[in-house]
């Protein structure tokens, strides 16, 4: 009987496929809507009426057997795959990531705080003139106020800026109040490199100028900055100081974020860490930039990115930043 042969062929083919195909594909191939078993059922109409009953039973038996086998196989395949389990303690596959330099990470972090407070980011050239680096900032030639500002000269009047404050001058000359900017960038001082000094480092300068700006606003902005950088519990302390381009001037300490102001080596037991210089923009500086110093007031502040980064990660030596040892960079 032809159909019997075909049924046997189908059983053989199924077992052959079972070795390679997953249970689901077997089910589709043999028991699906366009599957082998269904095709065989379609042949029933060619079977003589006398044999039809037996043939139908044989086909139903085939269908039942194959269904059972598929079920068995589905179970056994699960068992097999668990034998070939992946060792998930092996390292995952991923390309090694690059790194960002910690100085720029801190730079970005500081800039983010101030952009949230509505400060634009502005830049100025690193090669500056004496006028922008000193005179316009009320730092006269041959004045002891220049002692803190040893500078690399190219040839007078050109120099590489010793602070980011010249960007204040450029901004006040090019924008009208109200002004609210920060100016990050590289600065240069002819210092011998040691654990705390580097001939090149980075500063971020901030400036607000407009009618009605007060010292209380300066305190408000820097209080927000400190809390955003080091946490809600951070406090700030203002101490009088002297900068030729601000008056009143202040050094700003933040409560030590290492020890929670309890006293530690970083804050030298005082609970305070010096972070910023700041003050109200000196009226002479405003006037030199063509801003009416009676109608406008303003404040400026500046901080060292290296210092904040060193404090943040506990890096003991500023020279690490410029060595670019992969073992250093890999940590950030």
């Amino acid at each position: 009987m032809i159909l019997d042969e075909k049924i046997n062929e189908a059983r053989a083919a199924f077992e052959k496929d079972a070795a390679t195909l997953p249970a689901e594909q077997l089910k589709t191939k043999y028991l699906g809507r366009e599957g082998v078993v269904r095709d065989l059922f379609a042949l029933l109409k060619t079977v003589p009426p006398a044999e039809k009953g037996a043939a139908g039973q044989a086909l139903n038996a085939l269908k039942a057997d194959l269904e059972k086998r598929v079920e068995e196989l589905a179970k056994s395949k699960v068992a097999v795959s668990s034998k070939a389990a992946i060792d998930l303690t092996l390292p995952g596959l991923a390309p090694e990531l690059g790194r960002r330099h910690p100085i720029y990470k801190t730079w970005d972090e500081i800039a983010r705080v101030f952009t949230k407070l509505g400060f634009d980011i502005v830049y100025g050239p690193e090669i500056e003139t004496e006028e922008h680096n000193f005179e316009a900032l009320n730092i006269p030639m041959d004045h002891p106020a220049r002692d803190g500002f040893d500078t690399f000269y190219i040839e007078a009047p050109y120099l590489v800026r010793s602070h980011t404050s010249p960007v204040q001058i450029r901004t006040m000359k090019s924008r009208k109040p109200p002004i609210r900017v920060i100016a990050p960038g590289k600065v240069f001082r002819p210092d011998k490199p040691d654990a705390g000094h580097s001939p090149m480092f980075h500063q971020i300068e901030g400036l607000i100028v407009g009618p009605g700006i007060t010292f209380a606003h300066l305190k408000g902005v820097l209080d927000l900055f400190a809390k955003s950088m080091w946490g809600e519990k951070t406090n700030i302390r203002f101490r009088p100081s002297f900068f030729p381009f601000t008056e009143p001037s202040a050094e700003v300490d933040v409560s030590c974020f290492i020890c929670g102001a309890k006293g530690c080596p970083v804050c030298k037991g005082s609970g305070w860490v010096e972070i910023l210089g700041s003050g109200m923009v000196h009226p002479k500086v405003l006037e030199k930039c063509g801003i009416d110093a009676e109608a406008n007031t303003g404040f400026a502040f500046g901080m060292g990115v290296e210092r904040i980064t060193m404090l943040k990660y506990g890096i003991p030596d500023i020279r690490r930043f410029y060595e670019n040892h992969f073992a250093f960079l890999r940590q950030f």
Partner: protein
Amino acid sequence: MKVPLSWLKEYVDPPGSPQELAKLLVMAGVGIESIEGDVLDLEITANRADLLSMLGVARETGVNLRKPVRVPAIKELDGADDVSKGFAVEVSAKDLCPRYTARAVLGIKVAPSPSWMVQRLEAAGIRSINNVVDITNYVLLETGQPLHAFDAKLVRGKKIVVRRAAAGEKIVAIDGKEYGLTKDNLVIADAERAVAIAGVMGGKESEITNATVDVLLESAQFDPVSIRRTARKLGLSSDSSYRFERGVDHDTVDWASQRAVQLIVELAGGKPMKGVIDVSVPRPARPVAKVRPARIAQVLGMAVSAARIREILAGLGAQVAGSDDQLEVTSPVGRRDLKIEVDYIEEVARIEGYDKIPCDTSFGLRVAVDNPEDLVREEVRSTVAGLGAYEVLTWSFAEANTPNRVSFWTTGAPIPLRDPQGNVDRTLRESLAPRLLEVLQTNENYKEALRPVFEIAHLYRREGKAYGEKTVLAIAAPGDPLGVKGMLETTLARLAIPLDLTPASLPFLEAGTAAEVRIGGAVAGYLGQATSAMSGLRAPASVAEVDFEAVVKASRLTHPYKDFNRQPPVDRDLAVVLADATTWKQVETAVRAAAPATLESVRFISEYRGKGIDPGHKSWAFSMVFRGDRTLTGPEVDQSVQTILKALEANLKARLR
């Protein structure tokens, strides 16, 4: 400035402990270097010359504690002969010496100082010499006014001349060293020769010795800039020059002199000559400022009452007149930093206490404006770092005489940097590449596995008579230039900029590996393999530098969405044997020219040389993706592949492998 508490007590009642005084001074703006025993070492800012004296520190302490200050009483001592009969003073350099006074005490006895004075001086860090010299130092520390005592018998011609030094004039100072002078240096001379470097140091030949019996005492005011220049030029800084540089007060000059004469008579005996020789510009009026309490509130954001303002300013030694709306404040003696309203605003804030000023955050909302430059920089940094490169931070300097110059961006000599001594051992870098290769060297020396590094920073160049700088993205990586090219290509693709390379010849790159990078058709950088002389590395390394400003200009951070083709793709790979000289660009161009519009992409897979490939040839495998606007059939794609293969055979003498 070292301040022994025991000495300070003479002028003001300080708090009980040095620590309490230190705390008070710190919050008033006076730094504390150290506290040793009862001696505070103060760190004094450049504006506060007044704090370079015990009386100044007493004043500062007093105003903060609201306590009075006891100023030593001075009285004019009577003498026999008028000092002007015994001596003469001539000031020929009036511009550099606004006031010069001389007093004389005759018949003194030089001896050791009494122990109380020795102790005070030593606590303040000054070695005791003898009673006369010690008195000049004591009064300097007490009043901030430097004094100099000459042995009057050694002042030739009994005459003091304040003049510019003659060219080539020399003097041996009391430190025993000889100094060569120029006409920029002010000297104190007698009728014949220089006897002191004015304001800086006295001369050896006229110094007080045990044999001295008559003393001529100088108290003067010199031009701060001149003193500063001379001290710097000679590399000679003294307690006197330090104070003259910061400015002494016209009104303190003779007062301090009288104080010293009084002490000399008291401790060394002798008789003062009568009066003083005072060669002076007319006494300058003390600056008067209009100080408005309303303006103080406007600047500080905190109101201070007119009464309290008056109290503070009077406590600082100022004379305060005028109405409560507008005070008229005369600058205190010794406070040359107090001239205009804002100077007094600072004083009020300082003494009232910065901690009393509130934190005010009502400065108005404002939306910050992003710079395109910052947005592109962020995209570039995250992409390049995401591709595995380490961001580095290298010096903007180059060594002054480096053999490894990359003058791709510059013309002319590198820009020299002078340190304050005028030495040039650095120049500003012309390129970032040498420093990036140096980073690879450093890490090779540390036995690190080399990996790509990048930096976005400035290089510097001459622009006519002025100077300019340029922001550059630089990448360096071990291996041939394809690694660097891939990073650059991927990064620029993020900004919708195609990488356009033109072969080039550059002296610092290996021949046949270099190309110029073009953006919008203009040269905007280069890439290639560094020569081994340039890289200093054992293995090959490649570099790229691209004008970051050109990248920013050409960048598109957002672009319109294009709908995509949902028909299934058909992939076909081909491997063909080609002559070595054939470039990928030729292959890709030939493939695209021959292919029907259904060819979506062509991608290089790999190169094979060796067994089965003739010498001078290579086998390249590449894959193609076809996609139509309906489902493509296998036979029709095969037909396209045949057409492509025929074109490669015909145009590039390719052979199917």
